[in-house]
């Protein structure tokens, strides 16, 4: 008997996983059919709006869709939307990155307080920021007004991932750069920003997607984009073909933006060798620059946080007993909002579970396609999703579910599904598969193991997913206005009704409740996401 050379490679003390182990994940016992069916069903529902748009275009034929797409209005909207998106994204990139750098890497006085204050606006709905500016400074509007308000409303989407990436980056790289004779400014440009590059790009993609789908803020400021025009055509003009034609262009824009994120990820990664260092970077000294930097933070916090919060408080105190909306009305609207949002949170989390388990536990081409396609939803603005569900219900299901709470809940769940998926996926990936195997070997069936082992392990992730969707749904305006059940009122619809009548003092209480519900937990969740891997955090919004 001859032993092969294999034995001569003397075993090391800490044996690395055998090469076979690398393939283990991919070749574990076959996919349970129930899981597959669930994941496919979720993907189908998610892609329904896109499918409906395509169907609509094919149905009407090119001869009728073509003129709707290629008309003068489309060109004007395209220019107005894209130019604003480019300007705001650029402003957010600079503002968010600089703010993150000063908070994370310099000896800025009061760093911890600034870190909280610059993040809180992420929980304030964009339309509330616009409301604050419009109600206090009535003249604001137009391109630059919209650019200012939107930049202040969404820059945290860049700040959050960049701050997380700077916090986790290895300070040794900067030190190495300085020791190689590269100056301080050049090191910032080449190394510090290099480390944060992916985070900046990920944040910019989110900003651009938000701008494409924003309705409320632009409506308040009187600025016309694709989304406001689609909303008007659908809700006021009842012109379905025109709304669908514009939606097609908008979705293509969204897909272009989303593909930019995928392309940016292909080129290298911000990586580090060795374990995560416990070492904290030596903060850069601001020196005399401290005065303008602190001044800048002051202006930022006043304009982004102070104006909307101040406006709400101001109008609350201007309210007299005669104009005060009945407390019961606010409570009832809040109850509706909470119920719809909770339903959406449950539905989205439940839907994310099979997709996440499939993609983590049974990776393969099919799982990847299902997971990727669910992220496509990010490129579809809420107005388009609402439109698609409305028309699909009317045209193909004889009004089934139309103007019921169910349709609104499903629309919410679809819109915010990627958030739920990111949270659930991360927690499934962190739950060791070995525990599930032990459970199986102890005589428990696959379902029993899911219930007794996997679900308790990933419970925090499920809770986070629920909260993320819930908070987003609380402040959702566009789809809510389009799909709200007859006779029902939510905080968002009530706010909108009063705001549209310029009854700012009556709108303010609803905005106050929304901000109170959304802002504080959003901040807590933001900190939670900081601890996720960068790629997962990039998709989170």
């Amino acid at each position, binding site marked *: *008997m*001859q*032993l*092969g*050379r*294999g*034995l*001569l*490679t*003397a*075993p*090391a003390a*800490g*044996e*690395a*996983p*055998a*090469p*076979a*182990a690398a*393939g*283990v994940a991919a*070749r*574990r*016992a*076959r996919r349970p059919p129930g899981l597959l069916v669930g994941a496919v069903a979720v993907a189908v529902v998610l892609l329904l709006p896109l499918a409906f748009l395509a169907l609509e275009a094919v149905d009407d034929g090119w001869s009728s869709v073509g003129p709707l797409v290629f008309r003068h209005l489309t060109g004007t909207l395209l220019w107005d939307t894209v130019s604003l998106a480019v300007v705001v994204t650029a402003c957010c990139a600079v503002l968010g990155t600089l703010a993150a750098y000063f908070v994370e890497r310099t000896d800025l006085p009061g760093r911890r307080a600034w870190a909280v204050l610059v993040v809180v606006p992420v929980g304030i709905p964009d339309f509330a920021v616009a409301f604050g500016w419009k109600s206090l400074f009535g003249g604001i509007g137009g391109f630059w007004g919209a650019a200012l308000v939107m930049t202040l409303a969404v820059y945290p989407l860049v700040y959050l991932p960049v701050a997380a990436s700077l916090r986790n980056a290895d300070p040794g790289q900067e030190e190495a750069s300085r020791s190689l004779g590269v100056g301080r400014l050049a090191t910032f440009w080449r190394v510090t920003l290099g480390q944060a590059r992916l985070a900046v790009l990920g944040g910019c993609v989110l900003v651009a997607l938000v701008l494409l789908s924003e309705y409320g803020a632009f409506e308040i400021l009187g600025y016309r984009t694709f989304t406001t025009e689609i909303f008007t055509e659908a809700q006021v003009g009842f012109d379905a073909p025109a709304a669908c034609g514009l939606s097609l262009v908008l979705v293509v824009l969204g897909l272009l933006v989303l593909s930019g994120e995928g392309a940016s990820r292909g080129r290298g990664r911000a990586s580090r060798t060795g374990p995560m260092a416990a070492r904290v970077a030596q903060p850069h000294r601001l020196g005399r620059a401290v005065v303008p930097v602190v001044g800048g933070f002051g202006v930022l916090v006043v304009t982004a946080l102070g104006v909307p919060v101040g406006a709400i408080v101001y109008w609350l105190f201007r309210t007299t007993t005669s104009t005060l909306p009945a407390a019961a009305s606010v409570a009832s609207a809040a109850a509706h909002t909470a119920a719809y949002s909770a339903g959406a949170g449950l539905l989205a989390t439940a839907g994310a579970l099979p997709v996440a388990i499939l993609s983590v536990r049974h990776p393969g081409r099919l799982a990847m396609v299902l997971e990727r396609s669910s992220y496509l939803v990010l490129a579809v603005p809420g107005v388009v999703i609402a439109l698609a569900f409305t028309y699909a219900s009317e045209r193909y299901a004889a009004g089934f579910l139309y103007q019921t709470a169910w349709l609104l809940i499903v629309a919410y769940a679809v819109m915010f599904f990627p958030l739920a998926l990111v949270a659930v996926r991360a927690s499934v990936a962190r739950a*060791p598969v*070995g*525990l599930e*195997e*032990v*459970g*199986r*070997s*102890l*005589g*428990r*069936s*696959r379902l029993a193991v899911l219930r*007794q*082992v996997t679900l*308790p*392990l990933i419970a925090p992730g499920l809770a986070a997913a629920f909260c993320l969707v819930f908070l987003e749904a609380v402040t959702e305006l566009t789809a809510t206005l389009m799909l709200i059940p007859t006779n029902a009122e939510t905080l968002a619809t009530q706010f909108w009704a009063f705001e549209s009548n310029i009854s700012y003092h009556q709108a303010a209480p609803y905005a106050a409740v929304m901000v109170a519900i959304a802002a504080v937990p959003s901040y807590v969740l933001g900190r939670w996401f900081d601890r996720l891997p960068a790629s997962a955090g990039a998709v989170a919004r």
Partner: protein
Amino acid sequence: MISGLEVDDLHKSYGAHPVLAGLSLTVPEGSLTAILGPSGSGKTTLLRVIAGFERADRGRVAIAGTVVEDGQCHLPPEDRHLGYVPQEGALFPHLTAAKNVGFGVPRARRRAGVVEGLLELVGMAGMGRRYPHQLSGGQQQRVALARALAVEPGLVLLDEPFSSLDPTLRASVRADVGAILRRAGTTALLVTHDQDEALSWADHVAVIDEGRIGQFGTPQGLYARPGDLTLARFLGEANVVAGVADGDRVRTDLGTLPADWAGGPPGAGGAAVVLVRPEQLALVEPGTDGVLTGEITEYQYFGHDAVARIRPDRPCGPGGGADPLVVRVPGGIVLRPGARTGVVAVGKVRAWAGEGTAEQGSTSG
């Protein structure tokens, strides 16, 4: 008698890369068997196929007489009635020690105090309410073992369960686990890459190499009578010297010794390759008639014993190889590099017929 585990002609590949290539193995009931092999040899895959976490391409597995895997049938893991102790113990973090142990136990038996009995068996009585993060690494392994034993398994599989423990704890936990399994009378299969662990722990050792069992036997048998030199070196340090057959005995520069011939002795005067373990060599005063002499080149002290390397004055390896001889001496003897000494071998040695080559004599293994 029923075998605790029977594996027959097992095949498993990942893509074009075969991991198990017709592996066969029979483990006697109630015995502790170690699967020993370097990384990538397929030992973990073997364990996962036996447990049912992976499906074999071909071949048969029977646990305590029940076929759990062959061409047609693939019993799911939950129906195989085996205990599985993974690396790092893998206790359920959300359950207490007692709940972990009771995970696979039906409610009626849980009420009957089975869990407490098992915790006591593994020396963890009274610690059932603790959560895994409140237990030390060794305690976690004991709980993991109790959990595996709770289902009254026909076979316990241990996947390098001691490798994550720190070295001072490892030996004692290992001995305890072995003793508990012997007391429970369970058949157990341990996967390891650590030859000391395999030799000290198991009743039988199966050496796995390139997807097959290279050799199977008792630890003493494998160490003293390995099938070939590669295996001999894998199991411990080895000196290889040239010899000449002399009936049952073999004549070498280290003396004429009783031989254990692999594949039968060659005719008288035939060339031989001889394995001499470091502890089979003894140092004597130089100058004794006919004794091989040499210079001490290296001396490493380990406390309980010490290892010296000796450059022999005349080459004694196969094919004229002049590699240093490795000698294990009691720790009390202090040697000085540069000093001269005589070397003799004692006891029975393993020998193979043939000339051998200088490379075979090389002690770097």
